[in-house]
């Protein structure tokens, strides 16, 4: 008797699973960064289209990649950063969406689409969602000079007052640009020099952080921190003493974009989702909520607060953008070299 119960349970479960996959036609599996959307927009999307959104979050590009690659879960829409999109294109993981189904791409500003060509030539695979720069956040009450250079991060005067970014590519980008090199450098001597500089910086650093920099700077724990521009709007709201600057040596400009993995099962729903997120009103809602700059010119037009609309942090002037470079994917071997050198810095 027990055997039959077991078998019938398995049969029922299989029937349920089969039922699920049948209903898949009305679903879209979205995989995005943590806290990177206004959840209200998802509800609006579901209401308008009748498609159910299954929403999941990741913390780093590197967490997302193996999951999409292995196909353990077939996501329909993913939001990686520039160099990761390039890596996915090179490894043939992405589907070329039908842009007839994404007419709202017309709202994405031409200049951002142009920048996106750096990692997605011809804009064939991705639709920009958010973008920003890397820069220095400093506390005006704890610093008595004008900060405009990465140099302060290597200045002994600020020993123990520096929060360095705990992310390989970003950390090397800072060192390379301070030395006057390209942040996508693959030149061994340049990388060695950058490593030596970061090693010299190690004793001056209070802590290596990524997300924590926000709260630590708001609390006045350190004078100088490295931060993404999107967070800077939030921090200056919380603590008016904090100022953000993109150093004169140049910096990294990054774009996160929507892409559709090749193994997606609901490509049309995915296109509908991307199209919906590119609507000016929806992009504005997301911008208000997450404060990361939007490449959507339609949304920018709609911003009511003049101060935000003309904020040099959220929407930096052209001369700032001109000195910023996007990351390129450097290949597996170079990735390993970077990590090895970064470990040598931190293993001090």
């Amino acid at each position, binding site marked *: 008797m027990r055997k039959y119960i077991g078998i019938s349970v398995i049969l029922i479960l299989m029937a349920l699973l089969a039922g699920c996959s049948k209903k898949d036609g009305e679903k879209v599996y979205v995989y995005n960064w943590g806290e990177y959307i206004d959840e209200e927009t998802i509800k609006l999307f579901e209401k308008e289209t009748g498609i159910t959104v299954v929403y999941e979050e990741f913390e780093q590009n590197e967490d997302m*990649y193996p999951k999409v690659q292995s196909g353990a879960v077939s996501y329909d829409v993913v939001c990686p950063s520039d160099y990761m999109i390039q890596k996915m294109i090179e490894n043939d993981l992405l589907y070329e969406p039908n842009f007839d189904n994404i007419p709202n791409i017309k709202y994405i500003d031409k200049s951002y689409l142009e920048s996106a060509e750096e990692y997605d030539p011809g804009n064939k695979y991705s639709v920009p969602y958010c973008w920003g720069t890397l820069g220095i956040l400093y506390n005006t009450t704890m610093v008595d000079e004008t900060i405009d250079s990465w140099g302060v991060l290597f200045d002994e005067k600020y020993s123990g007052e520096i929060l360095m970014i705990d992310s390989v590519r970003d950390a090397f980008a800072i060192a390379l640009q301070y030395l006057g090199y390209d942040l996508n450098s693959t030149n061994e001597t340049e990388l060695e020099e950058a490593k030596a500089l970061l090693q010299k910086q190690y004793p001056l650093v209070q802590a290596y952080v990524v997300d924590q920099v926000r709260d630590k700077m708001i609390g006045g*724990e350190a004078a100088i921190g490295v931060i993404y521009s999107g967070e800077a709007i939030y921090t200056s709201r919380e603590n008016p003493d904090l100022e953000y600057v993109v150093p004169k040596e140049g910096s990294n400009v990054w774009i996160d974009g929507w892409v559709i993995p090749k193994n997606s099962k609901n490509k049309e729903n995915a296109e509908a989702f991307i199209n919906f997120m590119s609507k000016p009103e929806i992009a504005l809602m997301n911008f208000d909520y997450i404060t990361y700059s939007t490449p959507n010119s339609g949304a920018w037009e709609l911003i009511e607060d003049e101060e935000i609309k003309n904020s040099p942090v959220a929407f930096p002037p052209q001369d700032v953008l001109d000195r910023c470079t996007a990351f390129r994917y450097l290949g597996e071997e170079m990735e390993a070299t970077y990590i090895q050198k970064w470990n040598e810095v931190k293993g001090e």
Partner: protein
Amino acid sequence: MKISNLLNIKTPRSPIQKTGVNSLGIRNAKWLSFPYILWMAGFIIIPLIVILYYGMTTNDNNLTMDNIATILNPINLRALRLALELSIISTVICLLLAYPLALILDKSKMKSNSFIVMIIILPMWMNFLLRTIAWQNILERTGIINTVLKFFKLPMLNIINTPSAIILGMVYNFLPFMVLPIYNVLIKIDKDIVNAARDLGANSRQTFLKIILPLSLPGVISGITMVFVPSLTTFVISNILGGSKIVLIGNVIEQQFRIGNWHTGSGLSLVLMIFILISMAILSKYDKESEGSNLW
């Protein structure tokens, strides 16, 4: 060492068990262990095999020792040495704090004992991660301790982002795992044995060294294992309280997995497992020596 030793759940054999009939009256109740065996296979044995597989293969599924050999990389060796140092120091501190406490708890015949034991366990009702983040807020420069010190114009305490903060975090988080097994063993020591020793002329120092200490060794050993192993492998405490400036072997492994390099991560995990097995082998040797005078 048996798992039952670790957790100190030796129960006296009752005559009923010897006949193979338990209180439920079911003959041969071996099948009761089935859920645990299933659990063990699914969540301990199979993952171990997977780690072994990843640790000894390359991306193209070729057999290799390179992943394990990455431990010889000077940075990884340094991380391993530092992790060993910090976890040994924390274990010793835990032992020095826990043993006297357990003795006092055992000696005092007050009813408050269970209350004190509860106080020790109470923090564990809150998540480990939250408690560690709380320590960060306490130790920070603008944290609670320093704000108070500053108010009284006292010198600041600067241990956040140093190895000392990590040791503090380890001791704080793992101390209950040292206190409880020692206390459990101490309360079960037959007081008549202690009285007999005193009757036969042993002074209190002799009684402690020759009777109580040897009898409590099983508890000490499970305590050491349960503090040393998690301290050696931690990456959260070193990340939060060390400001990511101090890289322990746990951090190296975590980073390898995070960047998707499962092979190297597994290889390093295997090395770490060897260290844990060595420490457990040494400890179980002592455990066996004390078995002759076992109290159960």
